[in-house]
């Protein structure tokens, strides 16, 4: 069983939902990434999603775009990144998902990249520009290695959800809003409706994680009560990292994480 799957099983036993925390590696530098990860673990995050920067992040809003640019300028490279993951792995065995764009994997070769990532300690991938139609090689390379987490959107047809939920492993990522990451539009009825419908359709066969624009305790509470199995918070973390001095980073990340995590713990 994959580490992500195990995590969801464990949370179910504890009557909890998952908090997935996203950060961009190397933003604003590697030291900050290490401190942030410590804060996330301390604060009770269930899964960590590490963003690896791409020059052209077309599904991302201004906050993650800016973080990608800075990370690349600071010299984030693939091998350095894997070394960093190995370092993190010495401290924690929390499931780690890598979010980046297709070209980063394609260019190295899906098999090679996934093998190296797995060796470093990556448990799954999220590629926002990988559609199921183009995913054959990618899926093949990831099989029995890492989870392949696919995205669906509020406008995805039932027929496609059926297909996507069959090839997605770990969880299914429901994009909350029409838009890029981090753009705050408030909680929309169409999102709550999408969560309920997807849950009904997938019948608990795969956990549903909701992300894009999820930034406050209030958002977490609403999405969890609509039936989400996980919430993914990203840009809000990056904004916090941006304004926090290095020596306070670990503790502030931990307390923000705690404030989100508590809304994923269901009453007995």
């Amino acid at each position: 069983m994959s580490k992500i799957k195990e995590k969801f099983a464990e949370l179910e036993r504890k009557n909890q939902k998952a908090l997935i925390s996203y950060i961009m590696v190397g933003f604003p530098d590697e030291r900050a990434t290490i401190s942030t990860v410590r804060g996330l673990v301390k604060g009770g995050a269930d899964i960590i999603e590490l963003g690896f920067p791409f020059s052209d992040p077309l599904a991302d809003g201004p906050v993650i775009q800016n973080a990608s640019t800075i990370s690349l300028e600071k010299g984030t490279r693939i091998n350095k990144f894997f070394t960093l993951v190995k370092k993190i792995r010495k401290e924690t065995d929390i499931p780690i998902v890598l979010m980046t764009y297709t070209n980063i994997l394609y260019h190295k070769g899906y098999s090679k990249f996934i093998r190296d990532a797995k060796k470093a300690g990556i448990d799954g991938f999220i590629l926002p520009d990988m559609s199921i139609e183009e995913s054959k090689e990618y899926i093949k390379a990831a099989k029995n290695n890492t989870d392949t987490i696919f995205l669906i959107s509020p406008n995805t047809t039932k027929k496609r959800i059926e297909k996507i939920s069959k090839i997605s492993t770990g969880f299914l990522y429901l994009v909350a809003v029409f838009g890029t990451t981090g753009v705050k539009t408030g909680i929309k009825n169409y999102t709550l409706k999408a969560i309920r419908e997807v849950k009904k359709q997938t019948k608990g066969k795969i956990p549903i994680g909701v992300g894009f624009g999820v930034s406050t305790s209030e958002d977490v509470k609403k999405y969890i009560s609509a039936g989400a199995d996980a919430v993914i918070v990203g840009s809000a973390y990056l904004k916090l990292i941006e304004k926090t001095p290095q020596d306070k980073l670990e503790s502030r990340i931990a307390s923000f994480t705690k404030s989100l995590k508590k809304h994923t713990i269901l009453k007995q």
Partner: protein
Amino acid sequence: MKYPKNGRFGEFGGKYIPETLVPAIEELEKNYLKFKNDKNFKKELDYYLRVYAGRPTPLYYAKNLSEKLGGSKIYLKREDLLHGGAHKINNTLGQALLAKKMNKKRIIAETGAGQHGVATAMACAALGMKAEVYMGYKDTIRQKLNVFRMDLLGAKVHPVKSGSKTLKDAINEAIRDWITNVETTYYLLGSAVGPHPYPVMVRDFQSIIGQEIKIQMKKINNKVPDSVIACVGGGSNAIGTFYPLVNTNAEIIGVEAAGHGLKSKLHSATLSAGSKGVLHGMMTYLLQDEEGQITETHSISAGLDYPGVGPEHSYYKDTKRIKYHSATDVEVIDAFLMLTRTEGIIPALESAHAIAEAVKVARKGKKSESIVVTLSGRGDKDVEEVQNYLNKNVKD
């Protein structure tokens, strides 16, 4: 490759897109397939192309230039005479009409040199739709005449300050807008790039260039041209020129921007110097570093300043049906001046890349041979840029 059913030209193309765009892309493909053979749609488009845009465009024998070079005969396919001043209107009229049939009220587009933005603004004004155009900040400065034109035509221009602030970033931003407003908005992509079905649709709308060349050369010479040359940015004027001729024995040459030279890194010669990758929804040749990060490009012409290329060109490169050469900024300025002075035609800097190649081919060619060059646009927009270049290089 008539219609790539799975969206692939050989291994190239596909649709690498965020899931939010899938319904929009499916709706687009369904409607494109329905309307492309619809009698009324074709009639209406033909009407606008003739009476509004000015088709067919002439095929002009550049006698002075040919005689000066002393080799083959050079013919210019005068897309520069179209309304708006470039081939772009062939595509924008087609897609804007399609958007109208699909009941889309809001049109977005990206633009590099501003020619596609202007052509979008014109088509939208003519058909009663609203246009918003994303343009790299760097391009809004070096092509500011076109920013004013779009403004006057009633389009809203959004300068893009992310990344390299050129065409690729304008496309990123247009895609982000499309993801956000997917239910109301039609994305009118300006070159033969992007996810399927854009590359094939844009190629089809631009193929009128090559179809007319075939007919016109038959009248003049009773055969197809010996060589056909066009410049390649994303590759729309080139694929429109080439596609109707790929099954003939004409030699076909696409010309990319070599900027300061292929070894300098300051160029945009994707097919000549790139490697395979995935960007803007397609698998194609790209300019990227050893880790798959897209690299910054350079060209004196904003319209060729792009690190990708249409997937059908990648296919023809690998099958070797089409040759892809390149021209440096210096060669381009020479060609620009030569055409201007010998024929009284000021070409767009993009098109001057094709002229530069034609000069080389003509010099080596026989007098009995004919070369057709697509003059994709006129150079009014570039006059200031050329003047700056000449001032700087005279001083240096």
